[in-house]
């Protein structure tokens, strides 16, 4: 039963990944931790393996539709490493609660901006570039 739940949640994670361009880890980690009993570290590491596979196949499919700028994507990915290192170090200096609440605020701000932009861009028959 738990395995079925894990499979369904991973299917949903992949679906979300394809629809909105994220890796799906937000669903893979709880599926592994809650339904299969892996520890948090094991879940995150195993999720990373799944994310790489899912993102690679998703990117290949999107490329078939002409929706990938390969050079830009690779550059963003490669330049993320110094950010990750700083982020991991900084997370030990700053209160975790403060970090969670700040990112929640940022996420809400970006959500509002996306909706605002989508409404104005596509309102009068306009369309997004790209």
């Amino acid at each position, binding site marked *: 039963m738990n395995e079925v739940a894990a499979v369904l949640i*991973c*299917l949903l994670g*992949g679906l979300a*990944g*394809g*629809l*909105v*361009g994220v890796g799906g*880890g*937000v669903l*893979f980690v709880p*599926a592994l931790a809650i339904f299969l009993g*892996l520890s948090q570290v094991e879940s*995150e590491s195993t*999720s*990373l*393996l*799944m*994310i*790489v*596979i*899912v*993102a*690679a196949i*998703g*990117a290949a*499919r*999107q490329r078939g*539709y002409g*929706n*990938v700028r390969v050079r*830009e*994507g*690779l550059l963003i*990915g490669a*330049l*993320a*490493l*110094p950010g*990750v290192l*700083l*982020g*991991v170090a900084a*997370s030990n200096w700053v209160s975790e609660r403060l970090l969670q609440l700040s*990112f*929640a605020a940022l*996420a*809400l701000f*970006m*959500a*509002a*901006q*996306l909706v605002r*932009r*989508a*409404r104005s861009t596509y309102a009068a028959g306009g*369309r*997004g*570039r*790209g």
Partner: protein
Amino acid sequence: MPSEAGSLPSERTLRLAAIGFLAGLFSGLFGVGGGTIIVPLLIFWFGFGERLATGTSLAAIVVIGLLGALFQGGFYGNVHVVTGLLLAIPAVLGVVLGVGIQQRIPQRAVSYLFAALLLGVAIELILK
């Protein structure tokens, strides 16, 4: 793409670097995936359409994931390889389905879905 011809390559590179750096920073700080940052910033800063932003984000995530795995000391050790590969099967089915559906819905719907995802992330972080 009009935006490509109009702006200096160095400025583009700097903005791409900023997106990569911020995506990495937030993954390191909050443990959220880079896509949460990459997709909105490609839309806001580069004027990418939703489909182009999400496709390019997936390509970036492959690299971030590989680098993250290398930095953690490889995929072995903490990774349950068999479990990961088995669960990757429904996940891959999902992503193929998701990408296919995305081509058939209006781009604005992708923005709304992404906003809903961000809302969910915010609520989860607040309730933690």
